[in-house]
């Protein structure tokens, strides 16, 4: 049975750095099991929004509820507790270069569980196998390709069976085939584990291939320029800017 419960609620959010307001009046909801896309042009604040959702930057105004905990007024301990159930795949993978892939993935397991060393070892092999990196346990990040680094980063993000996984520009720097493989993997994880997925991207092919809900951030209005299923938004765009974005300017300028 699939309960359609909101995992993330963003309500009237303002993100600001000092006096500079990056975005305001941002509201959206991410339901359990969604693959939610945060899209927009370069410099519109996608990554800043991700930093707010992951508790790295406090909201200037408004509420950000992750698993019903409001990050606007939660203590660091509460945020940490919520973030234990979230995994993040950073743009470059963000693997620790002094550790092997196995050590990278074992780190959150050693930190937050009381599992035996044997189980941790087995789980590490499983997570690597799930992302297609069977046998790469003893490799260092410098010994593998960019696409593999991202997959290893994903294996680390999945280590604690997270309820939500955030992806920051997963396709950036990948060839089309590796990018497609990563997209397929995101869908597999979403469908098999029921994980809620939030992807920050501006790659149109990925947006339409994986997303079932999205928010479009518009740098000109400093806020939301569209909200809904990306395929639906393409059919019925609420404004010219979004149509421009979703069609790479080919229909928007007509």
């Amino acid at each position, binding site marked *: 049975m699939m309960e359609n419960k909101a995992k993330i609620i963003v309500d009237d959010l303002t993100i600001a750095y000092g006096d500079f307001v990056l975005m305001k009046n941002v509201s959206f909801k991410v339901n359990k099991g969604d693959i939610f896309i945060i899209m927009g042009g370069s410099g519109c604040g996608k990554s800043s929004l991700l930093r707010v959702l992951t508790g790295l930057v406090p909201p200037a105004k408004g509420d950000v509820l992750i698993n019903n905990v409001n990050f606007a007024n939660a203590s660091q301990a509460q945020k940490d507790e919520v973030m234990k159930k979230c995994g993040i795949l950073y743009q470059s993978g963000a693997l620790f*270069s*002094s550790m092997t892939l196995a050590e990278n993935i074992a780190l959150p397991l050693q930190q937050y*569980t*009381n*599992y*035996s060393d*044997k*189980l941790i070892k*087995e*789980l590490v092999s*499983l*997570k690597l*196998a*799930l992302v*297609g*990196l*069977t*046998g*790469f346990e*003893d*490799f260092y*990040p*410098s*010994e593998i390709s960019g696409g593999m680094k991202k997959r290893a980063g994903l294996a680390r993000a999945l280590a604690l*069976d997270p309820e939500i996984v955030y992806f920051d520009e997963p396709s950036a720097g990948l060839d089309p085939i590796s990018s497609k493989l990563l997209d397929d993997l995101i869908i*597999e994880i979403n*469908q*098999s*584990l*029921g994980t809620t997925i939030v992807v920050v991207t501006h790659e149109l092919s990925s947006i339409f291939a994986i997303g079932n809900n999205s928010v479009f951030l518009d740098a000109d209005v400093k806020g939301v320029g569209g909200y809904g299923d990306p395929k639906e938004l393409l059919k019925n765009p609420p404004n010219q800017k979004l149509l421009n974005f979703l069609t790479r300017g080919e229909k928007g300028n007509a």
Partner: protein
Amino acid sequence: MLKYEVQNKRICISLAGDFVGYDFPEEKEKLYSLLNSASGLFISAKNLKNWDSTLLVILYQLVKQAQEKHIGVEFEDVPENLEHLVHLALKVDRKPSLPSSEKGSYLENLGEWGWNIYSSLHRAFSFGGKVLSSFRRLFQGAAVMRGVDFLFALEGCSYKAVGIMSLVSFMIGLILAFVGAVQLKTFGAQIYVASLVAIGMTRIMGAIMAGVIMSGRTGASYAATIGTMQVNEEIDALKTMGIPTMDFLVLPRMLSLMITMPLLTIWADFMGMFGGAFVGVVMLDISPQEYWKYSIEAMNLSNFMVGIFHGFVFGIIIALCGCYYGINCGRNADSVGVATTKAVVSAIVLMIVATGIITMLFEVLGI
């Protein structure tokens, strides 16, 4: 709950209830070992409720081992997504191959060690040669060095270093005076503390303290900055643009340290003498005038110039080590740390070696 039984060499596993954080290594080992003599594997999950990766890992290990042993596997009422994940994990994209880590024979290792030393020396001398060519281009007016980079480097190793230099040199002068006073007092010759500190600081201690401080402060910063540029591929970008990295990165840093180190040495000399005077005046009851008189008498120009020459040489060593290890840094965050450590340690070791050589040389020359 995990139950299993063997029926006609067929292992029947029944999964029921919750499997969250399931960690029973002995039980799992027993189950895995049964596969050695099994002819089939049957997994039923009729009453399975909540599960996480700790169940998935058991199924993954079982099915993987069964496949390796060519044992047939059957699933019954196993949730579709769980079965799908097992198959996803078993899909191998490509087989990895780690570089061989086999140890060679004693002779091979010795040869490799010798070759590594030769390569390091070759790299270091070649770097020195490139720096000299860069200086030649500078004197010919053909070096690609931005004035602003030079001023920026000069700022970093001039007045910004004065604070720490003053404090440390003052303390060294103070310690030198204390140590000397303990011995000299027994002969009633405490007035010679002034001479001891003046000669010690101006001839070598001022330069050494300036060198140690600047290698930790500026040399480390050079290695870290250039090392990070290497990680970010900025050095590759310079090379592909045809800009000589020596001119652009090394020259401004070397020039600034060659200029400021002698000046910082002079400053360290005087601050050390102030430290000595503090002990002399406050603790040994020597009048300031008398202390000053003895200090001036002990100081001579050759001692002073020897100290300044040391400072100049140390400046070259610090800049060379910082830039060399920065440029030869690896491509990850760890390498930047290694480069920084090596830059500081090598600079300090080379400064001590240089001090020995210069002292011997000046002894022979009678300076």
